[in-house]
């Protein structure tokens, strides 16, 4: 005789949906309005029939735990499975202590239901043959310890069914990716609507072997993490793979370090090319100086000396840029007056702008308060951006009347610097690559380090740089810096104040 499934629960439509799923397993199903109805059905069916009772924690007339206890005390051969909400797991464990066969965490998937019904059936049969034999409860004391370990492992662990739905996950996973048990792995990890190509979980379902991949996943707060993923099959008693466990280790920091090293390697190659050019021009300066001295030609001597000075400066700046990039930077945080800081920066570039006949217009609010930065590095970054604007205007159509607007304001906890010029603007390609290491639109005059470092510095402060540009119209840089950092790292760390809140 087939085991009959009795269902009762607070939400009738949900209970009916579960009843339909249970009916598809081929077992006869009875919906009961109340816990009392369940108990009377069991009492009337003591003719040797087996029952599985599916209930939630809130039947109409009694608590779910009461029902479990009272079923245990009936003479019927019955097992209970309790459905609990994601925040009711402790109640589920209590149900197990009261001899429930299993508990399921809502929303209930078909696979989870099948497994629970199967296990309950097994227990009914074992109890029938061997009344004294006690199967271990699914969560006895050592298993609770395992649950704790599962939760605390410093990796993301999830258990997935054949449809790549997450049926269980550890605490760390839930913290970073949400506790949407029953959601699709590819949606939760990557916001995709279809499974990822070459999914290691599907591969493990296919061949029963562990698989490994490296993926970039996005947390619920939008952060990207590089993870190394390993999978392992979970089999039922018959050896069939019912689920696959996926363990993901966060290797973001290792990848960042590798990127840094790769960049350093690239830098040596690219910089050495740039330096060779500078040394050649330096030779040129010396040649001019020598021939000027030989011919007593003062203009030639001056030309040579100027070239040597220019090249020595360029070599110096390049070397300083390299050292700045290669060095672990310790930020020296200071509480700085915004207006004074902005005025100093404007003063630095004012002379250069005047020299090139470009108007530098300041628009600095008078009451901007203070902010937390390392003034030495932030001023370098801002001066770099302003100097770029001056150079862009200088190399533009000489007929045009050039102006650079340097404005500073404060909004939503951020100090906002804007550098807008009416120079030549940038094409899409330049715009896309402008923050890349070694990309320079200035030919032999640029090292491709300036904006890369400026961007790095602003990010290190938890800020960001936005750029808008229109060919022929000009370019606008917006630099947003959080006014306060939640904590100050004196150790160099790219994460220094990333948690100071999203930038609007």
């Amino acid at each position, binding site marked *: 005789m087939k085991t009959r499934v009795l269902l009762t629960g607070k939400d009738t439509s949900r209970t009916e949906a579960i009843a339909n799923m249970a009916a598809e397993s081929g077992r006869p199903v009875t919906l009961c309005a109340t816990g009392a109805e369940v108990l009377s059905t069991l009492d009337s069916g003591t003719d040797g029939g087996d029952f599985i009772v599916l209930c939630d924690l809130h039947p109409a007339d009694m608590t779910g735990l009461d029902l479990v206890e009272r079923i245990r005390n009936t003479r019927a051969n019955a097992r209970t499975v309790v459905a609990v909400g994601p925040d009711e797991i402790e109640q589920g464990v209590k149900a197990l202590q009261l001899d429930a066969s299993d508990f399921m965490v809502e929303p209930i998937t078909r696979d989870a239901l099948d497994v629970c019904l199967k296990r309950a059936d097994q227990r009914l049969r074992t109890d029938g043959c061997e009344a004294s034999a006690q199967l271990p409860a699914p969560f006895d004391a050592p298993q609770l310890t395992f649950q704790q370990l599962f939760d605390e492992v410093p990796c993301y662990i999830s258990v997935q069914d054949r449809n790549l739905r997450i049926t269980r996950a550890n605490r760390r996973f839930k913290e970073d990716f949400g506790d949407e048990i029953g959601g699709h792995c590819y949606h939760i990890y990557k916001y995709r609507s279809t499974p990822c190509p070459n999914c290691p979980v599907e591969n493990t379902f296919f061949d029963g072997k562990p698989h490994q991949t490296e993926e970039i996943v996005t947390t619920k707060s939008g952060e990207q993490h590089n993870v190394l993923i390993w999978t392992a099959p979970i089999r039922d008693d018959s050896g069939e793979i019912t689920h696959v466990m996926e363990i993901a280790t966060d290797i973001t920091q290792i990848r960042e370090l590798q990127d840094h090293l790769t960049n350093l390697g690239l830098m040596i190659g690219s910089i050495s090319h740039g330096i*060779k050019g500078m040394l*050649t021009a330096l*030779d*040129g300066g010396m*040649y001019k100086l020598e021939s000027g001295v030989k011919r007593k030609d003062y203009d030639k001597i001056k030309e040579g000396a100027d*070239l040597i000075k*220019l090249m020595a400066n360029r070599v110096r700046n390049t070397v300083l840029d390299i050292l700045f990039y290669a060095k672990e930077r310790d930020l020296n945080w200071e509480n700085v007056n915004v207006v004074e800081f902005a005025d100093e920066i404007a003063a630095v570039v004012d002379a250069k702008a005047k020299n090139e006949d470009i108007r530098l217009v300041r628009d600095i609010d008078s009451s901007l308060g203070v902010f937390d930065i390392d003034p030495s590095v932030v001023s370098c970054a801002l001066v770099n951006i302003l100097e770029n604007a001056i150079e862009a205007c200088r190399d533009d159509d000489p007929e045009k009347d050039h102006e650079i607007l340097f404005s500073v304001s404060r909004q939503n906890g951020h100090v906002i610097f804007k550098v807008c010029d009416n120079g030549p603007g940038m094409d899409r390609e330049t715009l896309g690559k402008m923050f890349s290491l070694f990309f320079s*639109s200035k*030919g032999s005059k640029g090292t491709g380090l300036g904006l890369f470092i400026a961007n790095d510095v602003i990010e290190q402060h938890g800020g960001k740089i936005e750029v808008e540009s229109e060919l022929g119209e000009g370019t606008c840089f917006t630099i947003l810096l959080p006014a306060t950092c939640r904590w100050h790292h004196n150790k160099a760390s790219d994460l220094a104040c990333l948690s100071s809140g999203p930038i609007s």
Partner: protein
Amino acid sequence: MAKKILIIDDDPNIVSYLDDLFTDNGYQTCSTSDGAGAVDLVKSEKPDLITLDLEMPKEWGPRFYRKLTQQGDEYRDIPVIVISGLESNQYAIQKAVASLSKPFDREELLGIVKETLGE
């Protein structure tokens, strides 16, 4: 009549250096900082020798050279000396009479120029 050398390099300081060096040694010169316009310059100036940088922002050396050789046989025979900061630059232009690495040796360059122009 003095032989004419075309200098192509994107760094105006290097152009100025080579210009001085060749002029002081009795050559005529013409120059450009941009590979893109160099073919026209070759046609109008008819140089006897070209010094060519490889990495230039608008059009890089090998592309200029290919375009030049497509203009006709008389352009194919103009000797080219590559002067570049790139490693292994001897493979960039097969027909180059010499490939010098920056920073180059002044006397070596002048020696090659003299030998190539047959003086």
